[in-house]
């Protein structure tokens, strides 16, 4: 009310002034009208003065901001189509980037929900390579005398089956909960007394596990469960937020002394110190996390630990004097350091390109709208609005679009993460690592802040250009009603759309390359048929073999020392120097089960039982060992390990899908015979008939029966290995494909918008052309041709950019390794087919986007347009 009165006051005062001035001028002899005009001339801009005088009393920018907001909202209400398109476009671009950021956030930025996470460091042992195994005593000394850590927690991740389902079990020292500040909502945490030699097995369940594994039992505390067949009492349930400090989800925390008993039956052969199983001599691999002593830096801790290590560990067989310390931040799953950023940056850049395309669209839309609003802006400027004020108005409008866009984008990002999870599970046969952490909480305030900032930056950056364009005061033209698009904004628009097409071409080429690589790898001939084949661990104990053979769906059973597709080559000394060769010991049934044909003859069961000096080599091994010679009948000698007369040549099959150092897949294999009772016969392979999924269950039941204490899954399929091998390629192709499709959609809509606008601008010209007899084919060709040229130029620029990126990537070995085992040998970054496909799609899309505008141009009525002005 007070403000209203003051505003009125000022207005009245100004009126008084003008009256008095006019009066004086009249007295000076002017006519009343001239006097009024003179008074106004002397006064200057009345509206502006009024505005300035009022502004003195207000927080000026706030009130004008409110005005701008009100005005902007009114404008949006009037053109809902424009508003929704802009918000939708931005939300799509931002949401995709947000999804990738939320993954980054979950892995790198969000600390574990523990007390003071940033003072926690993983101790990963000494350099060079002293193994991280300790006896209990050694560990306790390390913990007590530690010069760098105020407290150390040790833990060990185990897979345990519980009531037929796998559970993530973390065996931890008793200070785990107190050190990490993990609160327990029911019962008690683990305690010192749980570590004693006579202590019973106790466990704390995670809040999620209580719900999913203990049936949300309100009396969960005190329940006995069996983990790996061991009776364990649940003594507590952790509070909802707490889930340890590991990349995987934790279901149960058990006290460390359970390890010896729980490790029995572990399929991984454990080298225990000379058969001495007394607890104190047994070496266990621990993972360790320490809390840095107050005031100590990472480097200081390293130095202190190194000094300790040098003093404590005398060099002995297998040990060297420590020369360095491996220490890593443990606040997040991945530490935020140079390597991590290097890995995430390219991926992030690819997502950001999609946003860039979306922003170019938005910019073009704003530009077109800005031109359409020239009359309005011209009028406001004539009425005394400053140019700065107009720019501010347009910027305010940009921000008004940014906030709902950010909101919508967080929805898109959430949806994208959910969709990605679904894809991982159902389509891509997911990598267990990526799945293990719970992604439901991937959205948090960091993602929200990121999205808001990105939205504001992109709208301001891409709204500012059009705003500056539109607010250039051209009073005379605008008031005359001439809004011919000036050349500058036309140039800006075509630059934007060209950049857009180029970026789209780049992304499409990338997805073309990735998808073709994935196809090639999926069609890779492994040389064996793994469908319906199971690997079974521990079947050579008791009479398991006989029971598996007796199962109705078992077709045949054989043995091998190493799993098919996972036979790592070893280095041997030969007459012509050192060479690497993969060696597997297999029973005669092996080749039949995996459908590997043999030239010559197979092993006989007798040869298998007797470890006879015979061998079967793969075709490529034969070629390498005896080039240009018949291999049959030769003697293969691999170091002093084994030797044998070659009796058969097996068709090539891939030795391992994971060669060291990302080397090319090798098919060099030498097989020696093996009998079921051999010490090497650790793995049984079983071929089954019928549905593989149905065949799996009886096998699993049987193994669970015979191995109640088994550590993890005893039954697996080699096909799982194939899926894991393919997964990163599939994921890469899927991500690249999705980005490519998004880029294409956005680009087509952008090109469509710009060429529609251009046609609308040139209505008059088309009218004249039609009047002069241009036929529709010619006009269509003109409009489409223009876009075709745009597409070609964009595709060329995109292809050049792709080549530059490819050059960079072909040297970035570390990046490929970081991408979950994608070997750059399997992805041809210069794949011509991929480039051609990407470029062709862009050109076709650009030309196609001109079709509707071209039809519109053809249908221009010459009479009407020429009458227009």
């Amino acid at each position, binding site marked *: 009310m007070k403000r209203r009165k003051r505003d009125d*006051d*000022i207005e*009245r*005062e*100004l009126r*008084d*002034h003008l009256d*008095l*001035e006019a009066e004086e001028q009249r007295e000076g002899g002017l006519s009343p009208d001239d006097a009024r005009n003179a008074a106004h001339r*002397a*006064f*200057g*801009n*009345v509206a*502006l*003065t009024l505005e*300035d*005088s*009022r*502004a*003195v*009393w207000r927080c000026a920018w706030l009130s004008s901001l409110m005005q701008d907001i009100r005005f902007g909202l009114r404008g949006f209400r009037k053109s809902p189509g424009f508003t929704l398109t802009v918000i939708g476009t931005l939300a799509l671009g931002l949401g995709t980037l947000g999804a990738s950021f939320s993954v980054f956030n979950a892995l790198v930025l969000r600390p574990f929900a523990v007390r003071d996470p940033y003072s926690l460091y993983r101790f990963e042992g000494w350099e060079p390579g002293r193994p991280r195994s300790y006896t209990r005593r050694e560990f306790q000394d390390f913990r007590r005398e530690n010069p760098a850590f105020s407290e150390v927690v040790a833990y060990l991740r185990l897979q345990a089956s519980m009531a037929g389902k796998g559970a993530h079990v973390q065996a931890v020292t008793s200070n785990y909960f107190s050190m990490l500040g993990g609160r327990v909502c029911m019962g008690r945490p683990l305690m010192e007394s749980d570590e004693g030699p006579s202590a019973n097995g106790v466990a704390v369940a995670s809040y999620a596990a209580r719900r999913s594994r203990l049936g949300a039992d309100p009396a969960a505390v005190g329940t006995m469960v069996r983990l790996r067949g061991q009776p364990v009492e649940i003594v507590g349930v952790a509070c909802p937020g707490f889930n340890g400090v590991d990349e995987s989800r934790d279901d149960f925390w058990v006290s460390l002394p359970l390890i010896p008993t729980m490790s029995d039956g572990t399929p991984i052969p454990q080298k225990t110190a000379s058969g001495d199983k007394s607890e104190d001599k047994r070496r266990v691999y621990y993972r360790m996390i320490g809390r840095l002593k107050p005031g100590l830096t990472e480097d200081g801790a390293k130095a202190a630990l190194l000094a300790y290590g040098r003093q404590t560990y005398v060099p002995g067989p297998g040990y060297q004097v420590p020369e360095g310390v491996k220490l890593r931040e443990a606040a997040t799953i991945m530490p935020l350091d140079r390597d991590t950023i290097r890995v995430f940056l390219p991926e992030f850049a690819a997502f950001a390109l999609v946003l860039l395309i979306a922003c170019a669209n938005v910019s073009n839309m704003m530009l077109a709208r800005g031109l359409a609003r020239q009359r309005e802006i011209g009028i406001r*400027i004539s009425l005394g609005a400053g140019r700065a004020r107009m720019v501010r108005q347009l910027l305010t409008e940009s921000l008004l679009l940014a906030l709902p866009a950010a909101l919508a984008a967080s929805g898109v990002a959430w949806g994208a993460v959910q969709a990605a999870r679904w894809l991982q599970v159902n389509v891509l046969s997911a990598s267990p690592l990526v799945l293990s952490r719970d992604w439901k909480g991937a959205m948090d305030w960091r993602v929200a802040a990121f999205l808001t900032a990105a939205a504001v930056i992109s709208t301001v950056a891409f709204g500012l250009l059009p705003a500056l364009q539109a607010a250039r*005061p051209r*009073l005379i033209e605008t008031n005359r009603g001439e809004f011919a698009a000036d050349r500058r904004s036309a140039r800006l628009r075509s630059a934007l759309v060209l950049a857009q097409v180029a970026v789209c071409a780049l992304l499409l080429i990338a997805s073309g390359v990735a998808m073709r690589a994935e196809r090639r790898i999926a069609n890779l001939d492994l040389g064996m048929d793994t469908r319906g084949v199971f690997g079974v661990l521990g079947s050579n104990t008791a009479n398991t073999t006989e029971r598996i053979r007796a199962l109705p769906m078992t077709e045949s059973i054989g043995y091998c020392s190493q799993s098919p597709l996972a036979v790592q080559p070893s280095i041997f000394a030969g007459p012509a120097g050192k060479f690497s060769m993969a060696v597997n010991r297999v029973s005669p049934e092996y080749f039949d089960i995996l459908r590997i044909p043999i030239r010559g003859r197979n092993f006989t069961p007798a040869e298998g039982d007797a470890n006879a000096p015979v061998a079967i080599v793969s075709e490529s091994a034969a070629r390498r060992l005896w080039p240009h010679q018949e291999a049959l009948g030769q003697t293969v000698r691999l170091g002093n390990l084994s030797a044998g007369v070659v009796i058969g040549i097996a068709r090539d099959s891939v030795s391992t899908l994971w060669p060291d150092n990302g080397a090319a897949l090798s098919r060099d294999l030498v097989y020696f015979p093996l009998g079921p009772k051999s010490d090497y016969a650790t793995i049984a392979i079983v071929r089954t008939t019928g549905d593989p999924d149905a065949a799996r269950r009886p096998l699993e039941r049987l193994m669970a029966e015979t191995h109640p204490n088994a550590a993890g899954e005893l039954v697996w399929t080699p096909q799982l290995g194939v899926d894991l091998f393919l997964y990163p390629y599939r994921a890469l192709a899927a991500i690249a494909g999705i980005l490519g499709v998004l880029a294409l959609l956005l680009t087509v809509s952008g090109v469509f918008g710009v060429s529609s606008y251009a046609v609308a601008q040139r209505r008059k010209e088309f009218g004249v052309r039609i009047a002069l007899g241009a036929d529709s084919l010619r006009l269509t060709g003109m409009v489409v041709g223009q876009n075709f040229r745009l597409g070609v130029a964009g595709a060329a620029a995109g292809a050049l950019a792709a080549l530059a990126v490819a050059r960079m990537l072909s040297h970035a070995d570390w990046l490929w390794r970081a991408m979950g085992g994608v070997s750059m040998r399997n992805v041809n970054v210069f794949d011509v087919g991929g480039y051609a496909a990407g470029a062709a799609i862009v050109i076709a899309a650009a030309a196609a986007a001109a079709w509707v505008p071209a039809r519109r141009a053809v249908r221009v009525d010459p009479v009407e347009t020429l009458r227009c002005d």
Partner: protein
Amino acid sequence: MQDRTPDRTELLQGTLDMLILRTLLLGPAHGHQIGKHIRQTTNDVLQVEHGSLYPALQRLERKKWIYAKWETAKDRNREFKYYRLTAAGRKRLMAEESNWKRLVQAIACVMWPAPEEE
């Protein structure tokens, strides 16, 4: 459009404030009178754009250096908004005046230096 570069407004603002305060030292006046007085006493050298007076008046009023009241003019039957100097305004005027004097003297020293003594 008027060319209103910020530099010039700022320069005007400071001096204009002082001139207004000095004018009001003579007694209450309304906006038109203030402007006229400044013009006449400077022999029309200082051509204050009439409009620019009013934001300045609002500013001074907000700072409580002057206060305003609607009063009927003596010579006619009409109300005008009369401004008066407050105690704070008087103090402010003194401060500005001495500042101004120093500034003028300093400028004078540069522009017309005293002849050097031999």
